[in-house]
């Protein structure tokens, strides 16, 4: 099969004159037919938009001439709500940003507040955070793999990916009592330690999982239709991808190895050995390949963290900022008062502003916090990768077929909860 990696060129001639067919001379009497662009609304309720997103497509025949995303159907004013609550109170709000991968949002937010407060997290907590973040990355990529293939017609892999995702969600359930909106990270550490049973379950999963990734790959790469619909679709050059501010696998597919885990190492990542897969052609297939490779890398990272992890506290000991241990809250009056005050009044943050970016599985998830002192953020801005990726949608979709619009949503791995905030 011949692969096209260059973008199809649009025919500039908008008016088509039908030539007279010599075998049917009677058609000569037909008038010259004029074609014009067709406007088509895709969404807001379309299963491939992963939430509620509307795109106005301008079509010439079946080719996309221009597409205008209409967003904000899921806008809840999270940034405004952040200004009204304390730093601790905002953690559950971050779950609802990218509701598919709540753990990584918590992680990104807690890291930003820790940078603002200048808190060092204990070593065991760093390992735990890395382990859970990588589990979340696997879940995110499984979700992406299943739904993206489902959107463009390859159904089988969806069931296999979701079967394995279920194991990890149940693991989250045992860890923190919730499958999706987890709120397990805390400012200064994590809410609770992993029990030996959980560690054992995770180790079992790590042995079980890599052969399953090979299985997913077979389902997709042997599927001729799926390959034809991803190879050479939604191509973007490295230069354009950078200019648009794309991040995560969407950027790495174009050959830029920008990964904050390597560029600005944080948590336990500098102590783990892993590689950052980078694509060549910048098309949907390359981004798929990167995500699959990242799942293998995540397994490696979790394995190393479990091996290296030592016993120790899981919460930084900064009583003015971090929460007291739960057992003490229930038995000790001072700790209860402290917990109550931290949640209701907050801690006194120094005036200043910070930006802290974290490599979530979709891309760079960043929090920009402006503090003027006191217990509430003065301004909190969320740099969500989905929103910024949508900015490149029009550019990336031009010239492709209308059915490719679904592939292009899929290639970003968008979740509208994060996009609209």
């Amino acid at each position, binding site marked *: 099969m011949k692969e096209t990696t260059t973008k199809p060129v649009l025919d500039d001639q908008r008016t088509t004159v039908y030539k007279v067919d010599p075998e049917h001379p009677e058609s000569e009497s037909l008038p010259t037919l004029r074609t014009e662009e067709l406007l088509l609304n895709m969404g807001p309720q379309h299963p491939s938009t992963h939430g509620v997103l509307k795109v106005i497509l301008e079509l010439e025949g079946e080719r996309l001439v221009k597409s205008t995303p209409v*967003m*904000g159907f899921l*806008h809840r*004013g999270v*940034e*405004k*709500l952040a*200004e*009204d609550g304390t730093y601790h109170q905002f953690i559950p709000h971050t779950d609802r940003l990218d509701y598919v991968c709540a753990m990584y949002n918590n992680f990104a937010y807690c890291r930003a507040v820790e*940078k*603002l407060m*200048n808190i060092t997290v204990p070593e065991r907590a760093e390992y735990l955070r890395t382990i859970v973040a990588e589990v979340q990355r696997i879940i995110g990529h499984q979700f992406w793999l299943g739904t993206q293939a489902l959107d463009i017609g390859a159904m089988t892999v969806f069931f296999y990916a979701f079967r394995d995702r279920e194991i990890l969600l149940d693991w989250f359930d045992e860890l923190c009592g919730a499958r999706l909106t987890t709120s397990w990270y805390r400012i200064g550490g994590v809410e609770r330690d992993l029990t030996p049973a959980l560690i054992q379950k995770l180790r079992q999963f790590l042995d079980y999982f890599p052969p399953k990734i090979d299985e997913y790959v077979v389902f997709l790469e042997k599927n001729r239709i799926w390959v034809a619909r991803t190879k050479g679709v939604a191509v973007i050059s490295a230069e*354009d991808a*950078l*200019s*648009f*501010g*794309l991040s995560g696998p969407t950027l790495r597919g174009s050959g*830029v190895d*920008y990964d904050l885990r390597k*560029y*600005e190492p944080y948590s336990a990542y500098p102590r783990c050995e892993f590689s950052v897969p980078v694509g060549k052609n910048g098309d949907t297939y390359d981004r798929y390949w990167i995500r699959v490779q990242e799942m293998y890398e995540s397994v490696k990272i979790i394995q190393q963290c479990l091996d290296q992890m030592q016993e120790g506290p899981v919460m930084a000991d900064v009583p003015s900022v971090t929460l007291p241990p739960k057992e003490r809250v229930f038995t000790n009056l001072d700790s209860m008062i402290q917990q109550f005050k931290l949640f209701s009044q907050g801690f006194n943050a120094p005036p*200043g*502003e*910070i*930006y802290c*970016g974290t490599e979530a599985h979709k891309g*760079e998830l*960043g929090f*920009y916090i*402006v503090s003027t002192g006191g217990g509430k953020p*003065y*301004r909190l*801005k969320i*740099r969500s990768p989905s*929103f*910024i990726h*949508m*900015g*490149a949608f029009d*550019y990336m979709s031009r010239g492709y077929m209308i059915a490719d619009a679904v592939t292009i949503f899929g290639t970003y791995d968008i979740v509208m909860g994060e996009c*609209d*905030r």
Partner: protein
Amino acid sequence: MHALAERIQQEYPRGFIKAVEWRGDVAVTVTREFLHDIARFVHDDPEIDCDYIVHVSSVDWPDDEERFEVVYEVYSIRKRHRIRLKTRVPESDCIVDSLTDLWRGAEFMEREVYDMMGIRFRHHPDLRRILMPDEYTEGYPLRKDFPVQGKGWRDTFEFLNETT
């Protein structure tokens, strides 16, 4: 002062106002007139070379004369450093030059700032609301004088449990 900020100051002494380095982040405040020139310098200069736009944001300081602050954060993939450019605008004339010609990703980010804070961008290709509805006329939600519970259509209803 940080080397990057010093370089900007040397090149544009009239546009440079101040530089702050806090928690490892470098923030350079510039005048509104020079924002585009300095951004172009930050983008093109081989020493600074910021080819990646991270986010565009805005902060409302209602008590200040120049009420709004526009924040651009850019990163250099090759040099691995980030720099934050800030500029202030008064409420009566809240418009700054758009940087969409330097970083194309700024288009959506600036639209969001316009939508949420009401700051306009000169030469922006498509300055419309992005998250709020197009026909929304109740103001700009992230301004400090906008109530958290929202306002508009809902205010016309009477609620039974209101205590006032």
